Every structure is written in C-alpha cells, then in structure tokens.
C-alpha cells in the first residue's frame, strides 16, 4: 500500500517542497512521466512487434518530417462514413446504428471529399497504429488544418495497447464547404506515459480491435443497456414508415414498449 508520505514524495508541486523531503518507499517506483520525446518515439518504433512496449505506426511516410519533437503527424485515410438522411425525424443510438446512420465512401488518393459547411464526417488515419502497453495517446488537430476551420474533435483519447487506424470525427465548422484530400497530414499523435506493466495473461478487448476503416459504434438497444442497471421498462419509438394512405407500417421490431 502506498503511504501518504510516498505520494507526497512523488509530488513535484510547492506543497511537497515545503515539507521535509521523504524518500519514496520501494513499493512505489516513480516511472518516466510526461510526453514521449522524439528520441523515445523512435526507440519504441524500433522495437519488434511482439514487445509490449513497441510502438507501430505504418506506413510512416516522410519519417523525418513526420516525427516532431514530441508528436507524430498523422495523415487522412481514404475511407469515410458520411451521415445519412434518416427517414425518421430523430436518431436513436441502437443496434441499427451501424447500418442506418452512415453511408460508406471511398475517396482514392489524388481525389477529394467535399465536407459541407457545419457538417461532420467520420474519417480515419492513413496510418495503422499500435500503442505500447505503457502509453496513452491523444490525437490533436494539426494547427494548420485547424486554421481552415476543420476540427478533428470529441474523442481523441487512445488507450494503451490499442491497435488499428484511428477513427476521426472531422467537423467543418466554417460557413464554406471544405475539400479534404486523403493522404495529407490532418492530425498529430501525442504519446503520454502511463504507469502500468503489460499483463501477459490479460486478453485484448475485441471491440474496435484492429479497424482499418472508420467504424460505426457498436451500440446495443437502449432497453438492453438500461436493464443491466436495473431499469425494467424503457420507452422506445417504433421504427417504421407511413404509406400514402397515412397508415403506419412498423419495421421489424420485437422490442418492449414503455
């Protein structure tokens, strides 16, 4: 168990400085902390893939320019999920989301995708990434891209040992349609140390395991999610269509209605 003194000794702030210096016990070993620098990124990239501390970023084009002092540039991939106009006047995240909400589009290198004003699309990085067991990652919009009112936003955190191309929520927050060219740099990956060891017996989470295209979220139906926390009855809207005579034809749906 860590003692208060142990934790205090690990602090670097002013409060700790005022107290009598205490040597950290052997139970807590201060690890490397902070952001990975260029030297460490390169060293991790040089480790073999079976090493839990290895970092994989492939293909790393223009390596000299791609690796900055404390980050790695990421390029835009060629596949996108565009929001579909739904027949219903609402959207409910459920098991149909993957097939109902998106249109999959492939834009080859050398072509462009038009993102209308105030719209968001899902893209992915061109690079396939595997994070080390002792590092988390954060994806930031490249400053030059952000200055064109394009924002890579909202879910930028990557857990240790994640592998796959990163799904990017790309928002055009300007008043003008913007062209996106696959293959151009769009984001930066910043790696941060995490004080954890690789557990060889631990299994890898299979959701979002190794995607190479942007992926729709694997939602369950809301009543199923909420039943797990003891909610017995959940209101849902029946999906269906209204024909020319104003009659409602329900879509296949066996869900419990509230």
């Amino acid at each position, binding site marked *: 168990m860590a003692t208060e003194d142990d934790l205090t000794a690990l602090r670097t702030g002013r409060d700790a400085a005022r107290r009598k210096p205490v040597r950290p016990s052997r139970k807590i070993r201060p690890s490397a902390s902070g952001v990975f620098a260029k030297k460490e990124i390169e060293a991790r990239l*040089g480790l073999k*893939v079976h090493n839990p501390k290895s970092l994989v970023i492939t*293909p790393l*084009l223009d390596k000299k320019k791609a690796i900055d002092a404390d980050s790695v540039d990421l390029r835009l991939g060629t596949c996108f999920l565009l929001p579909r106009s739904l027949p219903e006047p609402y959207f409910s995240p459920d098991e149909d989301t993957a097939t109902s909400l998106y249109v999959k589009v492939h834009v080859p290198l050398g072509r462009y995708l038009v993102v209308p004003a105030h719209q968001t699309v899902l893209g992915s990085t*061109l690079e*396939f990434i*595997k994070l080390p067991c002792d590092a988390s990652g954060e994806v930031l919009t490249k400053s030059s891209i952000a200055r064109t009112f394009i924002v890579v936003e909202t879910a930028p955190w990557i857990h240790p040992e994640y592998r796959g191309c990163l799904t990017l929520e790309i928002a055009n927050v300007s008043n003008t349609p913007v062209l996106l060219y696959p293959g151009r740099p769009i984001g930066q990956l910043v790696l941060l140390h995490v004080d954890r060891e690789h557990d060889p017996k631990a299994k890898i989470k299979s959701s979002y395991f*190794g995607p*190479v295209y942007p992926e729709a979220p694997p939602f369950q139906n809301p009543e199923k999610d909420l039943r797990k926390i003891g909610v017995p009855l959940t209101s849902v809207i029946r999906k269906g269509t209204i024909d020319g005579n104003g009659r409602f034809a329900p879509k296949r749906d066996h869900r419990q209605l509230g």
Partner: protein
Amino acid sequence: MGEETEAKFDAEHPAPALRFREQLHRMKEDGWWRIVQGLSSEHVSLVTKLAAKTKYSFELQEKGIPEFIEAFQTIIPFIHALVIEITPHCGTAAKDFGRRRAEIENCLLHGVVPSQLLVEGGAPSPTPVSMINAAYCFYLTRLPELMSRLEGQEDSNLKHRQNLIERLEAWTMKGIEDFQLLGASGKNTSSGN
C-alpha cells in the same frame, strides 16, 4: 472427389489430376514447393497424390480432345516463358515469402498490419505476394491462436470467426495498399507487383 473423376476430362474442365500436376511442376520450378511442402495442410498431400497420376480418361473422345491436350502441353513452357518475361518480380516471390512469412504471421498474431516489418533496424516491406500467402497460411493454421488472445472470442463461434477473418483480410489489403504507397514515396526497396 472420386478416383474416377480425379483423372477425367469432362466437357468443360480438364482433369483435376492434370491441373494439380501442372501446379506442382510450376511450384517446383518457381521455388515455391520447397517452401510449402512442409505445411501441415491437406492440400499438400492432395497435390502430391493427384500429381502422381499420369493416365487420364476423356468424356468426349470423339472430338480429338486427348490430342489437343497433348499439343497444349507441348506449348506450356513457351507460355510460361512469356509470363515470366512480363512478371519478372515473381521470380523472387517465393524467396521473399520464405524469408518473411514468420514475421508477417507474427504481426497478424498481434493484430498489426504487416506493411512495415522491422528487420535489424531497417524497415523494408514484404511483397504483396508474401503478405497474401502468409495471411492465408495464418488463416489456415493460427486463427484460433489469435482468437484466444481476445476478450469474449470463441473459436467455435461462427460469427466471431467470420468477424476476425474479415479483419485478417482487411489487414492484408491495407498491407498491400501501404506497400504501393511506400513504393511510390521511395521508401520501399522490395520488388513486388
């Protein structure tokens, strides 16, 4: 496949035994057989067995098919020479596969696209031919091993297997796309197609 159909030419197809014999001959010539004959696969024993057959029967005797086949076999070496002329890189494909297979499979086992393998500090890409063949070998022999590393995945569950097979295909396709990109940007020294 019955004993009789193995060596029989029907109205639309040559006898499977002849096709396998030609395949084995080609693989030996191109250096592939030396590499794949040790695989624990039923296909290896099937190829060996069928290639040993030399007598065929013909469904359409009266149309001179046997003579046609005989004539065709005499020109196969010339066709092969022309194919080699337009695909010279295939000559080194077997060698690259033999050298890189273990590394490619290791990448796949760790859920990583095998487009840039790290060998002694350098990072030449394996050729698409090597990636496709190694991925197929991995599919045949090591998919359960990969599934055992993942949470909630059972080898006996058809949906789980299907999902992972699709992943495997996607990683291989991505590897091939990356190879083209790395080649175009001058980062690749391997020859490929």
